[in-house]
C-alpha cells in the first residue's frame, strides 16, 4: 500500500503502476472500473460495499471523496493498494479538497482501466443532474441511490426527468428479490389480476417503482398502502375477483407466498446489504430497459428508454449555485411538466414527488 499526501494526479498514476509491478504474477483480468463518489462520512460504508462487490466482479476501484470545496487551496491525498484492505483488486482512494473537488475527472481519467467499461456509483445524495458531475458523464453505467436523498420521492422523480439509458438506482435493485418471487408465484397463474396493492411506506422509493413496474406490466391500478413496518415493503397482493395472490415478508430472511386454494409456501427473501446490491449492478453493464419502463410509468414521463445515452458535461459550480439561489433544481424541467402528468398516477406518492420536485 502506498499513501500519498498532498500529491498530484501523475504521482497517483505512477504509484498505481509501481504497485502493479510489485504485485508481480498477479496480473489482473480487469473487467471494469468502478468509480465511487462518496462523502467523507459515508466512506467506510462505501468502501465495505465496494470491496464486497469487487470480490465478485474484479475491477479497478477508484473512490473519490470530495470535501471542503471552499478550502482555499486545492489538495489531493491518495491511498493506492493492490490486494490490501480494499479486496483482491486494485484500489485507489482519493480525497480531494478545494476547487480540485470540482475537477475530480482530471485525476480519475488517467486512472481508468484501458477500454474497460466504467461504472460510477454515488453513495451520496444523487446529483441533481448527472451531467453536472463529469464522473458521471464518462461512465457507461451510472448507479444512484435516491434513498439517501432528504426527499427520496422528489429525488426519484428527478432521476426520471434526468434519465438516460445506463442509469439505474439502488431503489430498483432492492426490488429484484421481490420481483423474482412475485414473478415465480405468477408463473402458475393464467388470469390477469384486477388490482394490485403494495404494502409499504409511501415515501419508500422502491415501493413506488414496484407500483410503476406492476402498472407497466399488468396494466392494472396499483395502490400503495401504508404498512406497519419501518416503511420498507412488507407485502404485495394481486386480486383476481375474490381470489388473491400475495407475497408477504415474514421475517428478515423469508417471505410467504399465499394463493387462494393453495397451501402457503415459504421462500427465501433475504434483506441484502449494500455490497450485494452493488454486485448485482455490476453483473450487467448494458442499460436496463425494464427499469426505464417502470420509472417512466411511475413518473408518467414518456419514452425514457429511447432517450440518448450520451450526456454532455454541464459546468456547474455549487458555490455560485448557492449564491444565486437554487435555480438549478428546476433545470430538470420534468418537474414542471411532470406536475400535471403525474397527477394521473394512481398512488398518492407521485403527487408528493411532483411537489418536492417543483
Amino acid at each position, binding site marked *: 500500500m502506498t499513501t500519498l499526501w498532498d500529491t498530484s494526479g501523475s504521482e497517483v498514476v505512477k504509484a498505481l503502476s509501481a504497485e502493479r509491478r510489485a504485485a508481480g504474477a498477479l*496480473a*489482473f*483480468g*480487469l*473487467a471494469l472500473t468502478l468509480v465511487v463518489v462518496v462523502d467523507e462520512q459515508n466512506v467506510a460504508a462505501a468502501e465495505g460495499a465496494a470491496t464486497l462487490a469487487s*470480490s*465478485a*466482479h*474484479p475491477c479497478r476501484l477508484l473512490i473519490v471523496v470530495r470535501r471542503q470545496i471552499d478550502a482555499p487551496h486545492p489538495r489531493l491525498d491518495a491511498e493506492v493498494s493492490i490486494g490490501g484492505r480494499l479486496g483482491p483488486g486494485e484500489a485507489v482512494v482519493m480525497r480531494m479538497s478545494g476547487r480540485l473537488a470540482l475537477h475530480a475527472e482530471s485525476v480519475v481519467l488517467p486512472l481508468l482501466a484501458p477500454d474497460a467499461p466504467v461504472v460510477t456509483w454515488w453513495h451520496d445524495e444523487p446529483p441533481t443532474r448527472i451531467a453536472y458531475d463529469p464522473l458521471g458523464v464518462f461512465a457507461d453505467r451510472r448507479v444512484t441511490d435516491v434513498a439517501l436523498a432528504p426527499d427520496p420521492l422528489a429525488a426519484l422523480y428527478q432521476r426520471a426527468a434526468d434519465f438516460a439509458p445506463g442509469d439505474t438506482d439502488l431503489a430498483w*435493485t432492492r426490488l*429484484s*428479490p421481490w*420481483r*423474482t*418471487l*412475485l*414473478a*415465480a*408465484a*405468477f*408463473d*402458475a*397463474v*393464467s*388470469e*390477469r389480476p384486477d388490482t394490485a396493492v403494495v404494502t409499504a411506506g409511501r415515501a419508500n422509493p422502491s415501493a413506488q417503482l414496484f407500483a410503476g413496474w406492476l402498472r407497466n*406490466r*399488468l396494466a392494472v391500478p396499483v395502490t400503495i398502502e401504508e404498512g406497519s413496518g419501518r416503511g420498507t415493503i412488507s407485502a404485495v397482493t394481486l386480486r*383476481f375477483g375474490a*381470489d388473491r*395472490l400475495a407475497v408477504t415478508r415474514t421475517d428478515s*430472511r*423469508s417471505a410467504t*407466498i399465499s*394463493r*387462494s*386454494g*393453495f*397451501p402457503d*409456501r*415459504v*421462500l*427465501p427473501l433475504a434483506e441484502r446489504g449494500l455490497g450485494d446490491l452493488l454486485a*448485482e449492478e455490476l*453483473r*450487467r453493464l448494458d442499460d*436496463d*430497459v*425494464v427499469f426505464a419502463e417502470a420509472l417512466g410509468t411511475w413518473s408518467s414521463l414518456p419514452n425514457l428508454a429511447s432517450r440518448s445515452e450520451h450526456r454532455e458535461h454541464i459546468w456547474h459550480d455549487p458555490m455560485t449555485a448557492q449564491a444565486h439561489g437554487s435555480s438549478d433544481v428546476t433545470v430538470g424541467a420534468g418537474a414542471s411538466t411532470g406536475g400535471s402528468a403525474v397527477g394521473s398516477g394512481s398512488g398518492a406518492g407521485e403527487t408528493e414527488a411532483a411537489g418536492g420536485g417543483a
Partner: protein
Amino acid sequence: MASTVSSTNPLRDPRDRRLPRLPDASALVVFGATGDLSRKKLIPAVYDLANRGLLPPGFVLLGFARRDWSDEDFAVFAREAAEKGARTPFREEVWDRLAGSVRFLRGAFDDDAAFDRLASLLEELDKSHGIGGNAAFYLSIPPSAFPVVLKQMQRTGLASSPDAPGWRRVVIEKPFGHDLGSARELNALVDDVFTPSGVYRIDHYLGKETVQNLFALRFANTLFEPIWNSQFVDSVQITMAEDVGIGTRAGFYDETGAARDVLQNHLLQLLALTAMEEPVSFGAETIRTEKLKVLRAVSLPTDLDRYAVRGQYEQGWLAGERVRGYLDEESIPADSRTETFAAVRFGVETRRWAGVPFYLRTGKRLPRRVTEISIVFKKAPHLPFDETDTAELGNNQLVIRVQPDEGVTLKFGSKVPGSAMEVRDVAMDFLFGEAFTEALPEAYERLILDVLLGDATLFPNNAEVEESWRIIDPLEEHWATTTPHRYRAGTWGPAAADEMLAADGRRWRRP
C-alpha cells in the same frame, strides 16, 4: 384460479435480466437417495440452488431407497450432506424451508407396492405442494437396476401419462451401456418409457463453466474462428488426468476401464465441442445436430498398435505418498488387463479438420488432477530471425482449462528483454476467478436446474451416445487381446504414449 402453466407471464421479460428463470413447481425424485452421489453431489446442489433462490415455490425433494427411514431420518441425512458438501454457506433458515419439502419413500426396485405408493404420493404432493404433475426422476442407481425401475415406472404410469398435466423427465448417469449394442438397448428402453426429449443424460463435464465458455470463445469472437481449422491448427490435445486411483469402485472399474469410463463420454464430448461447426442457433437441438455431425466424422487410425495406447499403473509415489499399483488394489484380480490409462489419436474427416490429429488421453494416478483442451497451432511459415534467436520458440497454443483454475491460456512468442534478439514462449492467462469471480456454480447445480427448467442444451442425446460407442467399440475389440503397458503411479503415463506423439514429430503438453 386455474393452475395451468402459462408461458406468457406478463411479469417476465427477456430483457429483464435481474429476474432469474425459476423452474415450474415440481418434484425431484432421487432413486438411490442414500448413495454416494446423492450425498456428495445431488443434495448439496439442491441446497445450493435453494440458497440462491433458484428453486420454485412448490419444490419437493423425494428420496427413494431401500433403507427403513422416515421423512425425518432422510431430512437429517440430507442436512448433513448439505452442510458438508454445499458450496454456499450453510444457513439454518434456508435449510428449514427446504426440510419442509423433503420426503422419503422406502422401497426396493422390484417392490410393486412401493412404486404404487410413489405414484399416489406424487398425486398427494400435487394437492399439498401444487407440483402440477411435474416430476424429474434421477436414477442414481447402478445401470443393472435401470430396466426394472423403468418398467416399474411404466407400469405405474409414473413415466408419462398423456392425460395428466405436467412434465415427466428422467435423469440418467453414465455409463450409458458398455458398447454399442447395450447402449442401443438402454436407449430403446428409456426412450420408450419416457419420450426421447424427456431423457437427460448427465455428463457433468458439460456443466462446467469453461465448457460452456467454449461456445462463447469460438462463436462470439472474430479472433479465433478464422484460425480454427486445419490451415492453422497443427493438432489438438485433450487431456483428462486424475491423481486418484480407483477408490471404492474396484468392481465397476475393473469391468469398465478408462476408455469406457472417460474416453467414450467426457473426452469425446469435449472433442465434439471443440471441433463442431457453428450451430444455427444456441438451442439444444441445433447444438446436438452439430455435435453429432462431428462424432460421425471421427475416424480411428489404421495402425491401432501405435496410435491407441493403454496403460495400467504400478506402485509408485504420488504427492509425497507411496501408492499401490492397480493390481494390488483391493478386489482387483491379479491378472486384470483393465486399463487405467488410454491415449488415442483420432481424426475428424471434415474439410475443416482434414489431417489434424486429435490426441485424447485420460488416466488415473497421474501427477495431478487436470482437464484441458489444447489447440496447438502451426509454426510460422517463415521466421525472419536467426535460427538461434528462436531456438526456444514453440508452437502457439490456446489452452482451455476445464478444471481446476477454469480459464484460458494463450501461449505465444515474445522477445526476451535485453540487447539480443531472442524469442521465447510466454503465457497469457485468463482466469475466470479474476475477471468474473461470481463464485462458479457446481456442475451438478447447473445441470439439475437445467433438468427442472427443461433445457437440454448441455445433455448429450441417444444418437450421440450411440455414435460414441461406434468410435470406442473397435478400440475395445483391438485391446481385448492385448495387455496394457505399465506406468509408474505419479508419472504422465506409459512411454508408449509419448512414443505415439514422437512418431508424429510432436510431444504431449505437460498440463
